[in-house]
């Protein structure tokens, strides 16, 4: 787990479901095959309706048509981020696209678990709404240990919720490493 993450923010709204994160017709790619796994990054967030893609303006595709993923490192969302199907392809797609952390007001539980247990990204919860505060493209920095977000574009700082129970799994890397270290898995 990195202690510090700095990069551009990509901002979405409430109830971003897993079909928006990675549409169902890409699910036939097998993440166990490296060339196919890469495709999840290429199509990450391609299901977000144009008007809601990259707030506040919208119409800023996460991965430009024909372009390469990797411009954004932190995704900011509203409530119920990652709702819908259980597909682990969702946090995997964000990870493949270069995202290291998501900051949302709340998460759907399967997305949250998948992010942590699969070691894809850090799902931070924020007690205050950051959609509207942070703009797509802002230069933001996360202090993971201190659960603090700094927006260098505006100079503002925000306190996020502590990671709590999931911190040991994030530190270990994923559920396998965690269970091995804890002796649950031999």
């Amino acid at each position, binding site marked *: 787990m990195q202690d510090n993450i700095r990069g551009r923010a990509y901002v979405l709204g409430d109830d971003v479901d897993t079909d928006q994160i990675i549409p169902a017709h890409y699910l036939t790619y097998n993440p166990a095959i490296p060339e196919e796994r890469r495709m999840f990054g290429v199509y990450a967030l391609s*299901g977000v*309706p144009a008007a809601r893609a990259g707030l506040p303006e919208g119409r800023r595709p996460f991965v430009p048509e024909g372009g390469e993923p990797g411009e954004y490192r932190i995704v900011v969302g509203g409530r119920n981020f990652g709702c819908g*199907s259980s597909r682990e*392809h969702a946090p995997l797609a964000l990870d493949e696209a270069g995202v290291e952390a998501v900051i949302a007001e709340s998460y*759907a539980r399967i997305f949250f678990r*998948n992010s942590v247990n699969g070691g894809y990204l850090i799902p931070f919860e924020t007690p205050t709404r950051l959609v509207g505060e942070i703009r797509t493209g802002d230069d933001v920095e996360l202090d993971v240990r201190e659960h603090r977000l700094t927006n260098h574009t505006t100079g503002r700082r925000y306190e996020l919720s502590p990671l709590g129970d999931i911190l040991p799994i994030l530190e270990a890397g994923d*559920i*396998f490493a965690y269970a091995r270290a804890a002796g*649950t898995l031999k």
Partner: protein
Amino acid sequence: MAMTMTEKILARAANRDAVRAGENVWVDVDVLLTHDVCGPGTIGVFYENFGRDAKVWDPDKVVIIPDHYIFTADAKARRNVDILREFVAEQGIRHYYDPGTERYKGVCHVALPEEGHARPGEVLFGTDSHTCTAGAFGEFATGIGNTEAGFVLGAGKLWVKVPETMRFLFEGEMPPYLMAKDLILHIIGDIGVDGATYRAMEFAGQGVHALNIEERMTLCNMGVEAGGKNGIIAPDSVTLDAVQARTDKPFTVVRNDPGATFHSERVYDLARLEPTVAKPHSPDNRAAARELRDVKLDRAYIGSCTGGKITDFLAAARVLKGRRTAIDTFIVPATTRVLGALHTERVGGETLAEIFRAAGCQIGQASCAACLGGPEDTFGRLNEPLRCISTTNRNFPGRMGHKEGEVFLASPLTAAASAVTGRITDPREVL
């Protein structure tokens, strides 16, 4: 210590006398379910972490039911089923239902109990969010990801946070124009798509225990649309009859202790509820069907793990008998058993299949079909920005195929009534 049903099931699975909501515990898994979309990834994770020669923890506890991308020419979709085939052969997994053979079933959440794999008191994890459907059988059932499922394949256990329980009580008698789908859409409208996040949803009361097992499955199925971790209904004679008809495996019936602590309790009077619809693009965007009578439709879709069971088609047939549909109407049985029932179940002397054909409906093969869009050649898929009334469970943008498509979620009765008029219609208008 007095515990809820969910706490008791998890305590047993954790080999503990008691657990309390909020605790994280490792539980032993009774059944792991996977399908063609998440199975290949799960298998990849399993081999990567346990070694290429690893064996699953218990081949009898793994159930693999391909259902999502079956009747498609898509090469990758077919390749994924081949991966499952190879895996079950290598691992000696018997509970596998192979497409293209007699054993093929269809939608996993409906096939799982048909084949006797849903049993009271057990812990079921599945790589699909609607795994919560099996809570109708009085067990703890919830969806997980591929990595977690890969972990379970090797270890036979998984950590869970014990959820608090929200109770939903339905009182009175179910009127003939309502179905379980209306009840759950009503709840989701009340509490919102994140209203039950991390919690168990228990459905109880006289109204719930008067429902057959399929209708109970519909209630638990959509718990996840309110963010619920699991849905659960206390076993009664209806449950036990359904389970014992399908398996001889022993199981333990678990119910709430008197004095158990609940997060909250809501009471509904069935006489006051109305046929309910969720408007685009969220399952909590609730309206009464009669308020939407001016909404013109292009298509009706009756199918999925939520609305493609025998009870659902019997209800639709009650409306469609002797009538013609005004819009394209797709009938998609969840499983091959349901498909068979379309030819044996009758309403007023005619089989359901006869009624649907005479009404001008198209009948598809047993599978998930267009419930989640899928490859372009999927039966019933919205390949254009159409407006569709559907008995499925999700209406997020793009869910049934086209990003600009509009999906209205409703009961099979409301969907059938709307198919007849071509606009959203309260079934009381036509029944």
